[in-house]
């Protein structure tokens, strides 16, 4: 059943007989030693013990796990990607051209004035955006210490704000699952640097009061930050810039379907309004005589990655956007929203908040974690569980636009089969998976994080 570790298959300790002096070098190096056929079999086997989007749906709310068109991998494999970042501008015109086009395209999609592509992930985008906001306030001689975050926001919003040195002010949701405008009025002050929102929010609900919210924040001298995790539901329909957002990040790997790779890499470009553009990271790209050039914005915060983040993700996202075009992108959001609403209509769990867009949060009639494990036995990946906490035993579900009706029906059948189970049976799941239920407590209590620790 279980594949032995590489180190259990064949480990070799080699003497390091270096041309360097002894005092610089190690005596020996002990690592697995396998021939190529065995390496190939090891990872082939491991892959077979893993579930990806080509195995079936992954309706993880907030994560946007859609089908990743395989041609984008071919584009990423094109030799023209093999360019070193320290080439002179005139020697990397292909790269700069693509960066420029993608900058401009994202600015259009977000309704923003300027975009930096540098942040290597969504959370890095948040951090970058907050640093830009901070630099902007500081440049205005404005000393602000707080970032306001709704309680249902992504954990990264809180963490990024704290990392940038801000105090986090948590904003409760109202009964409808949205930002409570009165509470926001009470929360804003001269200390408010930023309000961070995702829209639709993590319940899938559009913040209908967004214009009032923007006005409140702006009147207090704060800025409005858009978390792009849910942008896929707005394509062709609405733009954060038009709603009053000053800063936003894009999760290219969510909205524009580059594969998640078991956790990454992604890429989290940020877009900003005109006033904030001078503070963006360096380098930016602009048109120049006969081509493109890099430049440093006048008040740049510097860098958030040594180079330009995950270049290949940029390439794939750009290819994805070109492939779809206006009509295709609007179809993405329409179908994502239709699929979520259809799926919700077919399941027997209660969905307390609506009208939702591309995702919904159902409430399990049992422990949501157990429900998820039971769903595994139906050959599907379960939704995000127990979050946002505003819904009891939350099943946060985002089927995405690339699931067919047939798959949605299968998913609904899995939900409903599990809904009919009693708690005892739920607790015994999963039984059809590579591993049965895994003991998390022991893993944390007695952490063994490398093969060295297994010998102990």
């Amino acid at each position: 059943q279980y594949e032995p570790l590489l180190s259990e298959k064949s480990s070799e300790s080699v003497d390091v007989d270096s041309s360097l002096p002894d005092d610089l070098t190690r005596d020996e190096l002990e690592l697995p030693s396998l021939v190529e056929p065995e390496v190939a079999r090891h990872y082939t086997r491991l892959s077979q013990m893993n579930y990806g989007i080509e195995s079936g749906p992954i309706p993880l709310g907030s994560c946007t796990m859609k089908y990743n068109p395989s041609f984008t991998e071919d584009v990423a494999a094109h030799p023209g990607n093999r360019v070193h970042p320290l080439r002179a501008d005139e020697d990397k015109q292909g790269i700069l051209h693509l960066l420029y086009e993608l900058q401009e395209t994202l600015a259009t999609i977000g309704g923003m004035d300027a975009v930096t592509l540098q942040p290597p992930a969504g959370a890095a985008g948040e951090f970058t955006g907050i640093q830009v906001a901070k630099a902007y306030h500081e440049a205005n001689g404005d000393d602000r210490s707080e970032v306001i975050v709704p309680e249902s926001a992504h954990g990264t919003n809180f963490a990024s704000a704290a990392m940038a040195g801000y105090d986090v002010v948590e904003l409760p949701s109202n009964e409808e699952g949205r930002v409570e405008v009165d509470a926001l009025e009470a929360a804003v002050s001269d200390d408010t640097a930023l309000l961070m929102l995702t829209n639709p929010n993590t319940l899938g609900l559009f913040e209908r009061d967004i214009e009032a919210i923007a006005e409140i924040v702006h009147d207090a001298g704060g800025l409005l930050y858009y978390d792009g995790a849910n942008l896929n539901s707005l394509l062709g329909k609405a733009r954060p810039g038009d709603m009053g957002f000053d800063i936003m990040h894009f999760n290219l790997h969510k909205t524009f379907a580059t594969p998640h790779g078991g956790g990454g890499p992604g890429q989290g470009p940020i877009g900003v309004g005109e006033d904030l553009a001078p503070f963006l990271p360096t380098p930016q790209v602009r048109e120049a005589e006969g081509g493109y050039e890099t430049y440093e914005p006048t008040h740049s915060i510097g860098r958030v990655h040594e180079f330009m983040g995950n270049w290949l993700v940029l390439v794939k996202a750009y290819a994805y956007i070109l492939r779809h075009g206006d009509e295709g992108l609007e179809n993405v959001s329409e179908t994502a929203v239709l699929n979520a609403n259809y799926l919700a209509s077919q399941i027997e769990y209660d969905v307390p908040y609506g009208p939702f867009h591309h995702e919904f949060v159902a409430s399990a009639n049992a422990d949501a974690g157990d429900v998820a494990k039971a769903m595994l036995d139906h050959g599907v990946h379960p939704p995000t569980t127990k979050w946002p906490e505003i819904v009891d035993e939350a099943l946060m579900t985002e089927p995405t636009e690339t699931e067919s009706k047939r798959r949605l029906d299968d998913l609904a059948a899995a939900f409903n089969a599990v809904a009919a189970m009693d708690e005892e049976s739920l607790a015994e799941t999963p039984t059809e998976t590579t591993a049965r239920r895994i003991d998390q407590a022991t893993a944390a209590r007695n952490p063994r994080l490398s093969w060295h620790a297994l010998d102990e």
Partner: protein
Amino acid sequence: MPYVTHSDAERSAMLDAVGVSNPDDLFDIPESVRFDGEYEIEARSERATRSTVEGILDESPDLTEFLGGGHYDHYVPSVVDHLSLRSEFLTSYTQYQPEITQGFLQALFEFQSLVVELTGLGIANCSMYDRATALGEAALLADRVRATSGETVLVPDAISDRMRSVLENYTDGPGIAVDTYPTTGGTVDVNALAERIDDDTSMVYAATPNARGLLEPDLDAVGDLTDEHDALFCVGSDAVALAVLEPPESYGADIVVGDAGVLGLPTTYGMGLGLFACREDFLRQVPGRLVGTSEDAAGNRAYTLTLQTREQHIRRERATSNICTNQAWLALRAAIHAAWLGPDGLVDLAEECVAGVRETCERIDALDGFTAPVYDGHHFREALVDTDAPAADVVDHCRHAGLALRTVEDGDTERLAVCVTDTNREQVDALVDALAGYGGAA
């Protein structure tokens, strides 16, 4: 419509089920913020998209690069692509459901094990974005774990502007100062560092190979100094160099950061794979994800993400880092590359990084008008070269021969930097010819 087609019948059935006549009716967006314009992006076929994007990429000339400077090229064997591109790996999510993601978890566990072996430290996480952000996270960790309130991070004066800028963004929030200490003869000036370090120092960073390509000869002395001042010692290196270098733990490193993307990742405009290892007692302060072992209900060994209470999705503003999406797929690739090389192959690759630059420097040094390397000592992959002519002119000259080099501001002097690995070593002849030609022309 690519990837998103329902048949008309299916679409009707779905719309009926949700009770609307058009998907647009499901959008609960006030008219006032509706976007009624167009992006003006024209859709195109898969084939046309490929040729458009590849056409853009082809606008960069085909050059032989001797660039280095933080992004290094090694030959990545074919199996790395073929295996890592298997869709079960490539298109999977973070392993929040470990029962169906044992394969990726095991690969990440093996990656962590590789880093532990290379660094000698007790624990390694399963990736950071790149070496610069890993250094930033190290400074934040040092700030969290240090008993006293010292708030200065010391970095060598030769650190690149790029690395330093990223570090400064990371240290900005908690108000940690970043300051430099001198290097002499290309490497850490231990005496000067001893002068500079004090109890306000939370962390000292030193890289080997350093920004000039030199292997630092006195890191044990740095380890002693940090010990004396209760500062953390953060060593920068990479997964190839560490195959032959003394494990940093042995001379007192508390944290090792660097690039593991030297394995598994060819030149890709600076994409990185941040390596992060530290002492076991910092376990609960580590940024990023950790994979550990446990057992499943059947009593079999199983892998799982663990200690997630450190992470942002649980701990929110008190998390050890804001990182969520990481570089997992690149860690998989690095692990495959390392497995393919085995210990012998990895050591051989590292030795080639020593021999290539050494031999190249000898040949350049023999040319009129060039001194290579500028600094005595042992180099790894890259070295600085002094030129009688302005270094930028030499770079231009080589560019006409299809060779890409760069200049470096080294103190007050602009110098030539040369990086040699397994993938450009055969072109060193062309480089030497070009340089010799310049000498002749000058």
